[in-house]
């Protein structure tokens, strides 16, 4: 019983670190498909990023990281600024 509990704790720890993270951020100034493409392509170049989705209606960019990887708020801000836009609020989900 003790061994099983220990195994479960270890597995939970391992799987937790291997989870992909989905990060949503609003982007000010993103009003057209050309803008969205620039942001999407710049995020896709980041080695931590698995997928990027853009919604022009809500000005929301949703980034899913590769398992076990994450992107810091500073890095997201850097990518958005490098694309020529300004970042709004960030929401993270695992």
């Amino acid at each position, binding site marked *: 019983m003790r061994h099983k509990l220990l195994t479960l704790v270890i597995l939970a720890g391992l799987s937790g670190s291997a989870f992909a993270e989905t990060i949503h951020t609003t982007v000010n100034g993103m009003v057209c498909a050309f803008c969205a493409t620039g942001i999407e392509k710049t995020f896709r170049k980041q080695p931590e990023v698995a997928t990027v989705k853009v919604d022009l209606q809500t000005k929301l960019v949703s980034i899913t990281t590769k398992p076990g990887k994450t992107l810091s708020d500073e890095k997201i801000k850097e990518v958005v600024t490098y*694309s020529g836009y300004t970042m709004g609020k960030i929401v993270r989900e695992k």
Partner: protein
Amino acid sequence: MKTTTLLSLTFATILALHANAKPLSYVGGTMAMQENDETGHTLSLDYTFTPTEAFGVYVKQERNGRDILMLTPQINTLLKRWNLPDGQGNIFNMSGAGLARYHDNNQPCLWTAFLADYESRRYFISYEPRFVWDGDIEKSVWQRARVGIAPYLANYNDLNTWLMFQIDHHPAKHDHFVATPLIRFFYKTYLLEVGYGSDNHIMVNWTVQF
């Protein structure tokens, strides 16, 4: 004749891009633009190498009774951007220096233009003055203003449609003012504009970003 027409169309296609889309892409992106209107044909190919600068080649075949051909390298600079929650405003400068050719007369040439625009997902407005100096061939000033409205709000993967109205002012040309209603289609990184000017010329512009 066929070669000239083909060349003209190619130039026109390239030129059209300039006045229709922003002259900057994303860093590492390339943009081809062509414009064909009553002034002639323009083609440009730009590579964006920083968030505020693109470098490229600009070719213009000008009509209006004088077949002037201009070929210049060009640099496009984002001077100022306002990123707003529901819109974006920009001021760009585009400049080039190279050669102009009229018959067998080759002259150094310079041109510079400013583009100020504001767009939301629903409305668009822009103003662009352009100054051209082709040695002793021609010196000209040209300005263009545009307003546009999107009849529906399309998302990233949808076809975007804009209804626009453009006014050109060419003090040195026969038609000082040319009014052109046009329709713009925008799908991801492809843009196409078709209009019909008050001088009875068809305008066709396209832009591709890759």
